[in-house]
Each structure stands twice: as structure tokens, then as C-alpha cells.
């Protein structure tokens, strides 16, 4: 009987203590639950490092009006639309050309010229050109800060007429110097475009 009384007193005491706890606890909870959310407007993100466009322009060394433009545009980046590939101009046989390549981000306005970054970080980039035509040769003219080929500026020498493909690959952080092959250069691919190639 004595024990029971004691227990009851104790229970009452604890009840009182608990009554103090609960409002404090609820208050803390309530305060946090209401104050920790924010309603900031969700901003659009336009990826400025996205490459949407590759333009390879060839100008004949002997005839400034003989200009060829290889162009691939994928305006939705990783979206479902395929790149739109166009080739304008005529490549003549047995002719030398000066080539220059541009990488652009046309998904934002104004258009961002990513080629500048590629040149600036030339030691971490390299452009590779491969043609299935045997006597179609491409030479990289420009060099990076370490004196290794970069490949933004090129010269081309065409041979006999024929059709094939021209593949342009931009690698980020390749092994430099390398053997100028895709398999030997390593790195990760930032751009890989294949153009139909017709030498007339």
C-alpha cells in the first residue's frame, strides 16, 4: 500500500515534468516545420558549357571563293532531337585547304564561342580528324602552350575524287603528346561528329 502511494506521487510529479516538456517540444517542432521551407522562384538553368554546334570551315588556298562548311547543330543538347548535319560547298580534288573549326553554344543568347576555351586550355584539349579517303590528309597547324598539336587550325590536302566520311572528335584531357589516333589519345569525348565527304 505504501509503495502504491509512493508510485502515484512519483507519477504525478513526472506528469508535471512531462507537461513542461511537451509544449516546448511542440513549439520547437512547429517553429522549424514552418520556418525551414522557402518559396524562391525556381530559375531556369541554361548550360553555358554545352556544345550545340560544330562548324568546320575549309577555304581553298588558291581560290578564296571555294569555301566549304561542315556543320552539325544539336540545339537541344542531350535532348531527343538528332543533330542536323549540313555540308555546303564543293571540295575539289588535288587542292589544299586551310581549315578552322568552331565549337559554339547556340542554345543561349548571345551565342557562346566555346572554341576560345578550347584554345585557352589547349593543353587539355585536342581535335582529331579522320577521313576514310586514303589520300585525304589533314595536318594540325596550331600548338598548345606545351608545343603539342591542338587541331583548331588545320591544313588539308585532297587527292583523287571519291566519297567517304570525315569524322571530327574533340577530346577533353587526352594524353598529350600522343600518336594522333583516337585509340591512342585517351581522354573523354566532348564532340564526335561524322560528315559525309565528297571530293569532286
Amino acid at each position, binding site marked *: 500500500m505504501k509503495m502504491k502511494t509512493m508510485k502515484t506521487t512519483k507519477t504525478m510529479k513526472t506528469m508535471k515534468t512531462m507537461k513542461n516538456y*511537451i509544449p516546448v517540444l511542440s513549439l*520547437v517542432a512547429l517553429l522549424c516545420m514552418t520556418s525551414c521551407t522557402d518559396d524562391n522562384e525556381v530559375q531556369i538553368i541554361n548550360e553555358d558549357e554545352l556544345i550545340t554546334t560544330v562548324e568546320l570551315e575549309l577555304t581553298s588556298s588558291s581560290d578564296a571563293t571555294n569555301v566549304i562548311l561542315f556543320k552539325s547543330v544539336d540545339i*537541344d543538347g*542531350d535532348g531527343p532531337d538528332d543533330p542536323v548535319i549540313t555540308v555546303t560547298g564543293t571540295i575539289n580534288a588535288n587542292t589544299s585547304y586551310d581549315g578552322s573549326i568552331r565549337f559554339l553554344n547556340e542554345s543561349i543568347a548571345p551565342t557562346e564561342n566555346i572554341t576560345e576555351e578550347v584554345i585557352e586550355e589547349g593543353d587539355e584539349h585536342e581535335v582529331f580528324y579522320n*577521313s576514310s579517303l586514303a589520300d585525304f590528309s589533314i595536318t594540325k597547324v596550331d600548338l598548345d602552350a606545351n608545343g603539342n598539336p591542338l587541331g583548331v587550325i588545320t591544313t588539308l590536302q585532297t587527292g583523287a575524287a571519291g566519297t567517304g566520311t570525315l569524322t571530327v572528335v574533340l577530346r577533353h584531357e587526352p594524353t598529350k603528346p600522343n600518336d594522333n589516333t583516337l585509340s591512342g589519345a585517351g581522354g*573523354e569525348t566532348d564532340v564526335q561528329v561524322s560528315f559525309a565527304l565528297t571530293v569532286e
Partner: protein
Amino acid sequence: MFTKPLVAIALLASFCYTHAQECTLVLQGKITDFHDSQPLELAQIYVVQLQKTYISKADGSYEITDLCPGNYNISISHYDCDTKKIKIKINQNKTLNISLEHHINDLEEVKILADVHDNHSSTQSSTRIKAKTVQQYSGASLGDALATVSGVSTLKTGNSVVKPIIHGLYGSRVAIVNDGLRQQDQEWGVEHAPNIDINTASTIEVIKGASALRYGGDAIGGTILITPARVIAKDTLNGHAIIQGQTNGRGGSATTTVNNYRESGWYQQATLTYKKLGDFEAPDYVLSNTGSETAAVKLGVGFKTFEYGASAKYSYYQSEIGILRASHIGNASDLVRSINSGQPLIINDFTYDIGAPKQQVAHHGLQFNAYKRFAGLGKLNIDYSFQFNNRQEYDIRRGENAGRASLDMDLQTQNISVYGMVDAFENTIYEAGIDYMTQVNRPNAATEVRRLIPDYDANKVGAFTSVTYNPSENWMLDAGFRYDRYHINATKFYLQSRWEDLGYDEQFASFEIGREGNQIKTQPEFQYDLFAFTAGAKYVLNSHYDLSINLSSANRAPNPSELFSDGLHHALATIELGRLDLRKEQSYKINTAFHVNKGRLDLEINPYVNFVNDFIQLVPTGLETTIRGAFPVFQYEQINARLYGIDLHASYDFWTKKPAEERHTHPNELVYKAVKLLSLETNMSYIHGTSTSDEEPLIDMPPAQIQTQLTWYNAGIENLDLSVSNHAVFQQNRFPDNNFLVSIPNDEGQLITSTVDISSTPAAYSLWNVGASYTFAKANTKINLTANNVLNTQYRNYLNRQRFYADEVGRDLQLQIIYNF
């Protein structure tokens, strides 16, 4: 099978001992309630050395006869009481009165019945990882420790990002409850490991099903309960300190836990951990950029008495983890090069530096708990918690974005729950609870990369009730029901082309709220009603055998990744697409467990089957070309899945037996006078997962595996234990064919169509580990020396996301010193 060598050992040993002792001693006493001194009837007194259970009578008295002189471990349990473990030396007849504390088990969901295995507290199959094992993994990850449980495997990204898989399921299908708090750390991501310091755990319990309804009904894979050290009402300061060093990674960890307890009920607990590792090494090369650095702290203060108590706890976990440099690739051609090369394309000298790609995570947890017991009724618990999780992922980037995170997400979660338990009835416990969760996800727009997971606000309100009924000593029945309403409201920009390609412009036109450039701003909003039901029965035949069966039905809502992900996955060169029209998953699982603990054998067999309707998984749906070349597209789709499997755990002790000299020796003598000499422990698991929609195997199912360990106790020297273990993993021969064809430019300028083999599974492998462990009896100090992968075996693991790029880690020597105080 083992009987013959056993007999031989026993015989050999028997020559060494000649004198016999009489086994006629009696231990008796009375078992009472600590609080009101009432006698406790039907308390179970389990004598470990004899593997026998004795029951107290109506007046609380018990008697254990025919005892041999010596040391005994006795565990006394009573329905609804904390199990008490006592070590006692008996060399004459003895009286031992024991008082048990009622209701002290704060964290146990279901109370224990007459069960000799304290890892079986409900009808659900569950396994407890002991404090000793947890300590051994002080320098590893939570996932690594969990993988010691049969039926649990891990999904890895490298060696530091380790996610637990229970019965073939992982991610948001597995709930992790850390100290009563459901962990919310973006667990839906395949490359997201739990942000929990394993050293804050005292024990870890794995429940292989959806039956822990108190913590949510959607864990259709299972629930992991991490329990901190128990609070004791005694003036004492205890804890431990562990330092550990390893050769592979050339680093180590240090951790300490200090607990200060007062008899008044006040207590303070603190755990501090720091870990630093450099690059791991495979047998043939350095795994460049795989270093990691982790720091964690947990502080707790509280007041605990039998009738009421409250606590406040804060935990912080931060980790920076390097991701294998060679696994960051640009397109499918790079992946093919990597697969064909057979070794990473980038191998640098060993370094502690961590560069991109890497992950940086921080997790804060703040929790408050208060409870009160009501005499003659039960207990009421109120919990509030706040969690803040920040995750940053760094990729290889160009220009001014180099060094800027590609993903930076803040996830805030708050929970409030009220839980009540009524245990005033003799054989029945009722439990009920309600809880409310609110969650805010805010990706940082400054990354300049389109958000992987959009901004969202989510909330969940739920209630559960369950009952556990013990109709007799041998039976336990339980059942429970839970309902949750989950609501998610997101704001996401879709590329217009993607939105239209998926047909959302027609199906979900109502979500569109604006258009900016080539992106559409949308506000998808969904609500899911989730039901969970569980019922089970357990039959305890006697001290040696028990059998249980549990049925559960549960729903899981699609997670944000499954709903919204949209973009290129850099490690697998795939485009992954979420799906807005996903329905909830519906799982029906039957789990059975049969347990034997007889003589030298401890065996548990756990077969199960899980039917999941509308199982959400990634399925290849085609190829898309971008400026980087062609990528396969994987989209989340719903199929019906059937998973079944079996887990087996067995341990067998080889003992040296002391002789029985007298003819009339009591059998207890034979059992007691044995000394553990060798013990063989085996874990096996097998799982078979199929999509019944198209009769294709499910992807990422753990291959069959066997782990075996042989331990030699007191090997030549007292307190020196030597062990050798083997981990054999078979090749997974059941996998879906997700290979795809792409055109890859070769060095001659031709485009070659190649198959990208992302489906084939690595070959079987077998790893050997050896270990030595020495315990200084007086100093409470233990030294563990371990060599993992001692043969430096070269292998790849099907469940490692980096298996396309590099071998697993090679030989590793570890030294660990544990000091308990």
C-alpha cells in the same frame, strides 16, 4: 560430416584430462520485478553452456540442478522485460535472486518470447550484427558491415560508396533507421551511400521485409535498424577507442565513443570519428582518384528513468569521396575503349589528393525524444527530428566551370511522430503511431548544369497500428497495418523537345506553367496512397528449434529519381529518363525462417518469395544521337517482378570434451565441460529474380555466394584466436541483355558498328582472408591483425558500377587496436 574429426578431437583431448568433478550443484533463487518486487512467473532462465531453458514458477522461484562447478553465462528474460545477462561462478550450491526491469526496451518493436536467439524478436526474419562485429568494421563503411549478414549484399561504386541490398532490393526500397530516425539522405541514388558513421552504432539489426511498420510501410526490401549503446542507470563512464590502419589506401581511421551515465538518470554520449584513405590499389595498378576523407560526430544528452525521459541528439557526417578518374567518360566510344582495354585508361601514381570526379556529402541530424509511461497502460513516445543533407558531385568540366560542382542539392527533412504502446494486458501488446514528414529539395542553380532532380516539396502523413499476441509460451502471433499519404509537388524545366517526345505535352499539359527559350517550366504534382499490412506467426518448439512465417504486403511510391531524372549518365554513357506516370509498387512477400540451436550446431534457413507488381526499373528503349555521338536511352518502366531465394547461416563448434570419469555422470557435465576449440561459420545466399512480364531475368541481382570462416580459439596461446575465411562468389548467369550497337570511328576514319557489352557479368571469384586476434584479458584491449584478399586475387564484381573500368582492390593488411573502458 563433421562427426568423425570431431570424435577424434574429443578422444585426443580426453587423454589430457583425468580428474572429474561432481555435477550435483544447485543454483536457485527468485525472479522479481525491479520496480515493485512482484514475483515474475514464467521468466525464462537460459543457461548458455547447457543450452537449456528453465522457467520460473508462480512465486518467481527457479531451480537449476545438476550443475558442474564452473563459470556460467545465464540470460534471464521475461515477457516485456529487458533480457538480463549474468556471468556466475558456481563451486557450491548457490542462491541468486534476480530482478528484472520491465519495459526498458525502448527501441524494440516487438517484445521477445521464449526464444533463445536474441536476434528473433518478431515473426519477421531478422538478424542482429553484434557489437563485436560492428567494432571490427570501424574503418569500413556501414554497407561493408551489413554484408556480413546472409541475404544482404552491396551495390558499390568503387570501394567507398557502398549501398546495402536486402534480398535483391536497394535504394528507396530499403529503409535505414538510425537511432529511431529514418535516414533521409537522397538514398534513391544508385551512387549514394548512407551518410552514417558506423561507429555510432552499438548493434545493427537487419529486418528482411516490410514489417517494421513503425518506421514506414514502404521498405519492401527491408529495414536496417541502427541502435546506439544502451543507456544504463548507474554512475559510470564507459566507452571505447579504436584505431585502425590499412596498407591498401595507406590510411586508417580513429574513433572513440564516451558514455557518461548517472544513477539519477542523466546521461551524455559522444562519438567522434575520422578516417582518411588515399588511392586504393588493385593487384596490378593504382585505382587513381579513389581516396576518401570522412569525419563524423554524434552528441547526445538525455534523462532517462523508468517512467519518463527525454533526450536531444545531434549528429554530423561529412565525407569526400574520389570517384575513379577513368570512369568519367564522354560517350559510348570511350566506354568501348575502356571495356576493351581491360584496365583503367588513366593510371597515376598513388596520392592522397582527391580530384574530380568526386562526391562531397554532409548530413546533419537533430532529434528530440520524450517518453512517458502510464501505470497500468503503456508508454507514449514523441519524436521530432530535423535532417539536412547536402550533396555535391564534381565532374570534369571546362573553362571557368572547372572546380564547380555539377550537382549541389540541399534536402531538408522534418519528422514528427507520436507512438503509443499498450502493454498492460497479459499476453498482448498493442502499438499505434502517427507521423508526419515534410521534405524540401533545393538544387543549387549556380552549378550551371540542368538539375538532375528538380526542386520539390513533399510531405507524408501516416498512421500504423499493430498487435503482438502470445497465446502460449510456444506461440507468437503478430499483425499490423499502416497507411500513408505521400504528396509531392515539383517544379522542373523540361527541354521542350523532351517534353513533346515523351508525349507529356498532351498527357500532362496541365502541369505546364511557362516557357523559357527551348525549355518548358512545369509543376508536376502527385499523390499516392500507400497501404502496408503484415501478419506472422512463430512457433518455438523448445530451447532448440523455432520456426516463423511472415507475410507482408506493402506499397512504395516512385521516388524523385524515378519520376524526374532526365539526362546523361556519365559513368555508363546512357541517357536516363524518369517517367511521370509511374504508379506505386505493390509487394507481397512471404518470409520464413527455421532456426536450430542444438549442441554444436546453430543453423538458420530463411527461404522467401517476393512478388512485386509494377516494379519500377530502367529498361533500354532506343538510341539517341547528340553532338557527342549516340547514346542508349534507358527509361523507367513498370514490370511485374518475382524474386525468390534462400539465405542460410550455420555455425558449428568443434569442442574438446573433458572426460566423464564416473558412470553416472549427469549429461550436463558432458556439455558443460567442453571448451570451444574450433568453430566453422558459413553464410550462403541465393536469389532468383525475374520479370514475369517478359520472362527476362532482373538486372543487378546478387550472384550466389558462400562465405566461410574457420576460427581456432586459444591457438597455442590463451586469448589468441586465429581465423581463415573464404568468400566465394559465383558468376551471375541470369541477366537481361541490354547491349546496344553504336558506330565508332576507328583510326582509319571508318565508322565501325560495335556492340557495347554492358550486360555480361564478371567471372566467379574466390577471396581468402586470414586474421589473428589477441585479447589482453586485464587491459580490455584487443588487437586484430587481418589480411584481406591475401592472395592478391584479381577480380571484378557484378554489383560494382565501376566494373567496366577497373579491377577490385587487391591485398590489404589491416591492424586494429580496440580499447574498451
